[in-house]
């Protein structure tokens, strides 16, 4: 009896290993939370003081004049930058939603065997292309195509950045949308087919409605990606401060502004604070979008 009690209490290598792995995994798990809070605290600390004291909030949201380096009177109007980001993201979604949903429907509902596997791998590879490469494509290839095709003086504009960003966002949206479609039980498809539905009727009347939440969250994550993307937009959008009248106008995005200007500001200056204010805004917007996407997905599981 005594021996078995000892055996239960024994702390051998396996016990310590188990402990160590447990601690390691725990640290890994909470690091995500710690990091996100840390980033938020850092951005807020750098930007909040400026945002609450020096910055004219009304000017920030309503003036299109972003002139932080003006010798005479620096202005911090973010409206044009917001318009730039929104117009590029909007165009991107017009490109990405049909592409990604179409691809997801094809992969999930039509492709079989090898085709399916190959397509899935290709889509994932597409998602791994560095954004600077996309930016380069926008700068060197799309630019020329747009100039020739639409006979406009410059091809670095909303259309260029939107198409590039749409192609960048499409793979991740495809993957999530495909997961959502695959999660629809086959029972539903079989039931609909047994009632005489054609393949398209099965998809439009049963599968898509059943996967609606997942599809919405795929789109939202795509929007979040669009808001946050920096390098490709910087390279393809023309980077000129402008509220666009058409897709052929050059714009400048919030993210690109931070990327381009932060290196040249003095730490603690007004300009520095203004850029961090943009950062706070971006952080909050993407956080809300991602949170919404997450809640929408959870919505399915509850029901």
């Amino acid at each position, binding site marked *: 009896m005594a021996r078995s009690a000892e055996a239960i209490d024994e702390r051998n290598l396996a016990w310590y290993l188990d402990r160590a792995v447990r601690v390691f995994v725990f640290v890994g798990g909470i690091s995500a939370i710690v990091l996100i809070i840390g980033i938020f605290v850092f951005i807020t600390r750098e930007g909040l003081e400026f945002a609450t004291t020096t910055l004219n909030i009304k000017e920030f949201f309503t003036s299109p004049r972003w002139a932080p380096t003006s010798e005479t009177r620096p202005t911090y109007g973010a409206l044009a930058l917001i318009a730039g980001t929104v117009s590029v993201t909007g165009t991107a979604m017009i490109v990405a939603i049909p592409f990604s949903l179409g691809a997801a429907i094809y992969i999930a509902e039509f492709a079989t065997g090898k085709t399916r596997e190959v397509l899935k791998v290709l889509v994932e590879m597409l998602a791994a292309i560095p954004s600077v490469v996309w930016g380069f494509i926008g700068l060197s290839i799309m630019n020329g195509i747009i100039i020739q095709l639409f006979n406009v003086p410059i091809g670095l504009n909303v259309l260029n950045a939107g198409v590039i960003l749409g192609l960048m966002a499409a793979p991740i949206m495809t993957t999530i949308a495909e997961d959502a479609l695959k999660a629809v*039980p086959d*029972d*539903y498809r*079989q*039931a*609909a*087919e*047994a*009632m*005489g*539905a*054609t393949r398209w*009727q099965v998809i439009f*009347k*049963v599968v898509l*409605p*059943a996967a609606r939440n997942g599809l919405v969250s795929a789109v939202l994550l795509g929007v979040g990606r669009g808001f946050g993307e920096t390098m490709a937009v910087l390279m393809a959008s023309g980077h000129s401060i402008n509220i666009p009248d058409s897709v052929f106008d050059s714009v400048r995005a919030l993210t690109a502004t931070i990327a381009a200007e932060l290196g040249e500001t003095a730490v603690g200056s007004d300009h520095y604070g203004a850029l961090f204010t943009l950062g706070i805004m971006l952080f909050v917007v993407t956080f809300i979008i991602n949170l919404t996407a997450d809640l929408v997905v959870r919505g399915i599981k509850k*029901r």
Partner: protein
Amino acid sequence: MEQGVGMENQAVNDAAGNSDDVAIRVQQLSLWYGTFQALFDVDFDVKRGIITSLIGPSGCGKSTLLRTVNRINDRLGYVRTTGSVEVLGKNILDEDVALPQLRKEVGMVFQRPNPFPLSIRDNVLFGYNLHEASGRRDKGNEDDLAEAALRKVLLWDEVKDRLDQKATELSLEEQQKLCIARLIPVKPQVLLMDEPCSALDPAATEAIEELIWELRGQFTILIVTHNMAQARRASDECAFMLMGKMVEHGQTSEMFVTPEHKETADYIEGRYG
């Protein structure tokens, strides 16, 4: 077979009492899943307007036979058949058969209730909207159809105040009734039921059996069941299958008392299966 024919005629006369029409005529049907042969030269007539049950041990081919009648087996993509299955006079194994039309005439109820994740109303009218509604939809007419279908499956009183509720929130018994109800608005001739009670508790099973009995005469019903008591209680004719072959087919009351084949007797007495 000669013996069988005599028995069938008799069965029709005293069981259904209406016509001796054959709704489904299966002749020399063999079926392969890839290289595996699941059915061997099956001959089988199902008469109009009565309830015929298919019994036999697991893997005997009864579900396969059932799923051939509306060609839902085609979904698998690797199914090959020889022979013929005539439904209402047309060989439905022909290449040129319009599957939506066939499946409108031949409704199917599955083992697990599978209502769509839509409202109760949309579930009932799903088939109707696939087949009938072209162009303008008439809400009043749709409401009437939905009510009639739900009344027919004895579900109307339970759900009439919550037709917009999601069908997947209903109890399993209600779900299965709804799955029967949604077939009715397109006026099918034949109802195929693949172990419709096996996912239900005894009370729900009884309710569904009663419902099936209610529908007798209005539809030709072919029901696969594992439950011999159910076959005995709730069918006019019964067919016993074993190893992909049709062993015996006759009037239920006779088959359970005086089976012709030893295999049938053994199965009915529970010696295997």
